[in-house]
């Protein structure tokens, strides 16, 4: 993040630099310990099986804790923050001093977070997301909870860039303004959300983690397995087939359990409110959070639902904000709201976007796209048919047939609804997604054609927002060009804030 030199004079001791709450030391202590364990756990696990390591382990642990404690204390002492009229200045760093100045109008979002230990001590952390080109995120680790809310109000409730109170004629909303509830997740709803997650993925992640931990503990496991009597191994040779269904059920159960636990930890007591100029989200179990998203900073709204979610009428919505240059691929500026029913989703859409109005054009891909999908998905058949065994041929053919069915269904559902100011993309079959974007917030427009598309007068179009692209492929060239021209007109003719 760049230093804002122009703000230097404005600060002029109007609010002297302040330290965080002393609990900030705990924050740094826990963070550095965690970073150390996460970085060196394979080495530590390797050392754990060495007897001589245990001889000196307590001294090593004491030395480590003292070192981390001293670094955490120094970090706390060198960290100050200063709130000016329109800039937040943070000074930090032990060996390398750093001064970060963040103009309020560059602040995308201010999160108030409360981990379990912060809840006990009555303090909270503030995380400030910006959209600067370096993509830095700053953090105030611990201030009193009440103060955290006041700071959030000061940092969030600023006029949007390029727009003042006089221009809009409206009162600037405050972060703590009461809002209209869109959704409040009760425990039964949370339970349903947990049940409709992707259990297979969660189970695989869990088993992957177990496998990763199992390798360093190989010695312990070998010792444990050596205690299993020989007749048990002998019996296992005959009954292992019977264990497959049990294992499958076990995997599903573990997946469901992990999904439920994950849903409760992430979304406990989640409340979404529509406030004057945006959305306010709060919730969380072990780590409580609260933040507000101004409407004009929302770049894209993405709804997604799996089969289980559609079965009970739920959809998960993701609100995408602008990503800075260095943040691509990260999900830091995206907020997910699960368990939304149709009317909740409509309310959310109504808060974040102007009414869609009449759909002027529906763009559908040319059937060439389907042909390409079918050909690509069938290519695996060639080597299998030439070199594969009979069983493999049958298995892969069935798999390819399923993939082709999915391709046909995906192709059927793919469409881009366009009007003069917005687009909505509908895609996916088993996992359905829809994305909504205002054309005026686009960053750039790209038209692509290759020799095959050129022959048939088709193009691909990519509408890039600051939160990622919306792509529509194999559409008629003149329609693609018209959409590009309309999108550019929207971007260039409107001056409302977009970030």
């Amino acid at each position, binding site marked *: 993040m760049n230093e804002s030199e122009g703000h230097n004079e404005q600060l002029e001791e109007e609010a002297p630099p302040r330290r965080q709450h002393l609990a900030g030391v705990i924050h740094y202590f826990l963070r550095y310990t965690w970073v150390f364990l996460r970085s060196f756990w394979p080495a530590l696990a390797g050392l754990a099986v060495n007897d001589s390591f245990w001889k000196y382990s307590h001294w090593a642990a004491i030395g480590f804790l003292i070192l981390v404690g001293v670094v955490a204390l120094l970090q706390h002492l060198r960290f100050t923050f200063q709130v000016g009229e329109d800039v937040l200045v943070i000074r930090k760093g032990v060996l390398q001093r750093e001064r970060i100045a963040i103009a309020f109008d560059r602040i995308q979002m201010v999160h108030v977070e409360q981990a379990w230990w912060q809840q006990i001590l009555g303090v909270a952390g503030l995380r400030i997301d910006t*959209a600067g*080109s370096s993509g830095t995120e700053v953090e105030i680790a611990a201030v009193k909870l009440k103060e955290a809310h006041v700071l959030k109000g000061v940092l969030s409730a600023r006029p949007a860039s390029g727009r003042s109170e006089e221009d809009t004629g409206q009162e600037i909303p405050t972060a703590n303004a009461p809002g209209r509830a869109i959704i409040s997740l009760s425990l039964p709803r949370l339970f349903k959300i947990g049940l409709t997650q992707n259990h297979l993925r969660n189970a695989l992640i869990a088993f992957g983690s177990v496998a990763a931990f199992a390798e360093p503990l190989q010695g312990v496991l070998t010792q444990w397995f050596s205690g299993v009597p020989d007749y048990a191994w002998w019996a296992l040779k005959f009954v292992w087939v019977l264990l497959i269904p049990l294992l499958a059920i076990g995997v599903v159960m573990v997946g469901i359990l992990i999904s439920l636990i994950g849903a409760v930890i992430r979304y406990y007591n989640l409340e979404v409110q529509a406030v004057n100029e945006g959305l306010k989200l709060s919730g969380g179990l072990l780590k409580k959070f609260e933040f507000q998203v101004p409407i004009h900073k929302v*770049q894209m709204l993405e709804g997604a639902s799996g089969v289980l979610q559609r079965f009970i009428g739920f959809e998960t919505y993701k609100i995408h904000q*602008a*990503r*800075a*240059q*260095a943040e*691509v*691929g990260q999900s830091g500026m995206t907020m997910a709201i699960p368990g939304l029913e149709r009317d909740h989703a409509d309310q959310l859409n109504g808060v974040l976007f102007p009414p869609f109005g009449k759909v002027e054009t529906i763009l559908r891909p040319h059937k060439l796209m389907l042909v390409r999908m079918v050909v690509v998905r069938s290519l695996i058949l060639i080597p299998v048919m030439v070199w594969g065994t009979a069983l493999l041929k049958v298995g892969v053919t069935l798999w390819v047939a399923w993939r082709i069915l999915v391709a046909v269904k995906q192709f059927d559902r793919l469409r881009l609804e366009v009007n*003069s100011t917005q687009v909505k993309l509908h895609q996916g079959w088993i996992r359905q997604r829809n994305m909504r974007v205002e054309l005026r917030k*686009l*960053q*750039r*427009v*790209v*038209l*692509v*054609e*290759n*020799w095959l598309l*050129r022959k048939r007068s088709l193009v691909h179009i990519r509408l*890039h*927002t*600051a*939160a*990622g692209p919306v792509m529509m492929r194999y559409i008629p060239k003149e329609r693609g*060009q*018209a959409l*590009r*021209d*309309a999108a*550019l*007109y929207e*971007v*260039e003719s409107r*001056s409302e804030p977009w*970030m």
Partner: protein
Amino acid sequence: MPFTNSSVSIDSLPTLEAADFEGLPSRYRTYRWMVYGCVLLMAGVGLGALVWFELEAVSTLRWGVWFAIALVGVFEATWALEEWKGFPLRGVLVREHDLSYRSGFLRQEVITVPFNRIQHSEISQGPLARVFNICTLKLYTAGSSGANLRVSGMDVERAQRLRQRLDERVRRA
């Protein structure tokens, strides 16, 4: 200022005309063919060495070597076709409110960046490009990594003038 929302006819919207794109200097074409020639030379030397070692070892060329020769041949031919047919298509179109760059023959891309979305711009020039007096203009917008529009092979003076204009627009935005 009172809010207005008058209707706009789609036909009246300004369109990007393919004919309006300005080509890049012919020096850049020479530069690209030089790079192509160097790669062709290196590939030729590599293949020659492979053939020599193969003939030394087994006095014949096995299918793997023929495959490598064919692969390099197809790659070089495709590249040559792209350079030959693609260079005349490369071009820049600067309008009042946006900049477009068209490139490619086998896969043609037209990228348009509105001026009011440019975060910053950059001009870069490598040692070989300095010899040819050309440079690369890079434009950055929000929401992705690296430059979002790279116009390679621009005349340095034109690029600097254009960048100056862009910077003025960005400052005004």
